[in-house]
């Protein structure tokens, strides 16, 4: 099958790749571009481990075709920390022990970024519904929710 040439940006860097038309974005990120920080737990849009931002919008990279990233800006977990260091969301996940195994963590952090970009002061219910597409089997969510609440407070103070 002939491959398609795609030009996109990943975490600000210009990137070009060849993919088959049916290849998903998560496959290309992980296997072609070696950005393995984005995880794959189900490939059917049910676990959120593959959460990335496509032009700032939260998507499951397993449900996006790689060709759809043509001309877009893709933000992955590898693009969340800044030159100054960890993003406050990342710091709060660490401080609150909001990860046990850590496989869901990249997805949760990207999804939290999308949430706080849109709702800087979410209440608990909003957080729980926003993150309902991200499965965590280890933590029972308690510490994740607290980390997100704390990150929201910190970011609000910084702003």
């Amino acid at each position, binding site marked *: 099958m002939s491959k398609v040439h795609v030009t996109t940006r990943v975490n600000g860097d210009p990137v070009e790749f060849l993919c*088959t038309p049916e290849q998903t974005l998560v496959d290309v990120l992980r296997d072609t571009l070696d950005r393995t920080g984005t995880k794959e737990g*189900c490939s059917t849009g049910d676990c959120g481990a593959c959460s990335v931002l496509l032009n700032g919008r939260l998507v499951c990279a397993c449900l996006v075709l790689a060709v759809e990233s043509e001309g877009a800006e893709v933000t992955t977990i*590898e693009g969340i920390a800044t030159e100054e260091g*960890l993003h406050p969301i990342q710091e709060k996940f660490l401080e609150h*022990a909001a990860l046990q*195994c850590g496989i869901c963590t990249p997805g949760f952090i990207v999804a939290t970024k999308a949430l706080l970009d849109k709702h800087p002061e979410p209440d608990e219910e909003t*957080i729980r519904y926003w993150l*309902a597409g991200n499965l965590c089997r280890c933590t029972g969510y308690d510490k*994740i929710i607290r980390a997100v609440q704390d990150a929201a407070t910190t970011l609000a103070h910084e702003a």
Partner: protein
Amino acid sequence: MAEATEFKAIGTRPVRPDGVDKVTGRAQFGADLNLPNMLYGKVLRSPHAHARIRRIDLDAARAMPGVHAVVSGADFPGAQHGEIGGEGGGDVADVAKNVMARDKVLYHGHPLAAVAATSQAIAEAALAAIEVEYEVLTPVLDLEAAMAPDAVLVNENCFTKNLPEPAEKPSNIASVMTLARGNVDEGFELADVIVEGEYRIPMAHQGYIEPHACTATVNESGQATVWTCTQGHFALRTQTANILDMSVADLKFIASEIGGGFGGKTVVYLEPVAVMLSTQARRPVKMVMSREEVFRASGPAAGSCAKIRVGAKKDGTITAATAWLAYEAGAFEGAPMGPGAMCVFAPYDLENFRVEGFDVLVNKPKVAAYRAPGAPQSMHAMESALDDLARELNMDPIDLRLKNAVAEGSQAAYGPKFPAIGFRECLEAAKAHPNYQKPVPEGAGRGVAAGFWFNAGMESSAEVHINEDGTVQIIEGSPDIGGSRASMALMAAETLGVPYEKIRVLVGDTEASGFNNVTGGSRTTFATGMAVIQACEDIIAQCKDRAAKTWGVDADQVEWEDGQAIPAPGVNAELKPLTLAEIMKTAARTGGPILGRAALNARGPGAGFSVNFGDLKVDRETGKVDVLSFTAIQDAGKAIHPAYVEGQMQGGAVQGLGWALNEEYIFDGNGVLENPGFLDYRIPVASDMPMIDTQIIEVPNPSHPFGVRGVGETPIVAPLAVAANAVRDAIGRRVHDLPLSPPNVLAAIEEG
């Protein structure tokens, strides 16, 4: 020792050593390794739950361009019977057949061939080109059918073990057991009240978010390296060596970071296949299960049927109890009947009881350990029965349990006398808890239940190296599944008296670390922690020796305090303390590098008890159950890193609630799993759950230097009955079977 000690590092909540890599995407999990020249391996799985394989034709697949290896059962050595090694254990020959079927396929999804090709698409096409001829057999799909005298046999060579007389004909009952004390008939005669019930729980899955994945590469001399996500790379190495009839020395296993396991990643599925494919192809082979494969063909928790009968006097004293426990093992023997039977009455001091257990074959995937394997199923039944009993006696459910609770010195139902344990402390804490004092919200019900798990010890090894600047490197071999590097570093910091920040922890591969049994049985912080502590004590002894040499005194004239060697009282007071860094500066002259080590089989893991309660609301129109609040109280012995202890309690609570409320394997009449994905096998999501309140009780384990008890498994046990008892309270009727899904609860409401 533990009671009086004031700790400096232990009990604090520092950021875990591997944390930054896990929040930035750097940490490498099972599927994250790609090697040059790598092939993709895929498995052909049975479309039937029970069938004889008449013929497999691999030629067309082999001939396809891009296909470099094709294997089926005939390519694997005929594995001998024997203990496979690892948690749950099992028989080598069984696990070998589970990894790759030989003459029969025993469940839908059972592997029977595998290919390695240059792309996933080619691998899939090659699978499609394999021709198989089956003789389809009737599947055995539930406990009743399997245990019936004229049942179709899953395995024609299975004769029931542990019968008083050797079995004469084959059966689906692989083994039986009994556990008894006193005289139950007399006990029931003394009872004022007797309750009984029959409880069924379908198979459920651990639901780790990371699918099984591995990459194997075998060189021309037969040396294999396997990168895999596992709870125990040493155990998987042993299993692979046994199945492939290889020398352990030819297998190097590297544990990647692991994305959850809960018991399900203690046994091989892909690894021996990847090694076989790589041997044939002479190229690296990567294999990753799809989510559907994980559900269909890894090891779920056993389905069960439990019949319980409990009698008590008016004051709540239990006079007799019986339990009949049957577990679905799946296609091969090895359901957790033993631990289930040993746990069912463990929290209670009973004079008369009898437990019967049955390990039953059915044409479903071979079960694996799932967090306190066997206990949630049996204790759900007992804790539900106790709730009924408390109602009959008009007693507070906590008081009823207090009346019968085991304490230090009680003879456990499963044998030994308990040393110091914290069950009563948990019960009393629950009773006094502000959440328990609050009234039950309108429309909701409250449930209370206890949980128990033995915890495990087993083999661990650790080395501690002091770097030339006095910083510390720990090398151990227990995969870190939930923050164990942090607990190792904290225990080393406490023992050595050096700051946590100066300590690094490596989970070494099978060539870099001494043997460590699996991260399972809630053993890692206890047993591997003990090895780390002993290795640090070894370091201290050596450092004292080095200081003595430096000072020209005897080693017994040196003491160790706050991370430095100091002269003992009365010894020349002019001597200035020597820090680790200072000792290392002159180490070349005093004897060379400093390396401490310990290898042990840890004894006395210290039983873990919990008491949980929660308020659950039932929608009477739809049968949907919502968790309004949940409180988990558990004895941790000593919480090394309290945040990760709470995390175990919260995570276990939510897993248990998921199992109670929603999760179940649904099979059609042909034994095909109908919900092999997270959409239909619905695990709890953030919006389903409230915050989970925790209270850690600390009754030190006398067998551990810091008093540690395992904490990982007990948390999943009580929530099943908490949910069942709360629903009973809310709707006024007991729903005996799980899950308490809307249709089941609605049916109960409508009947009532």
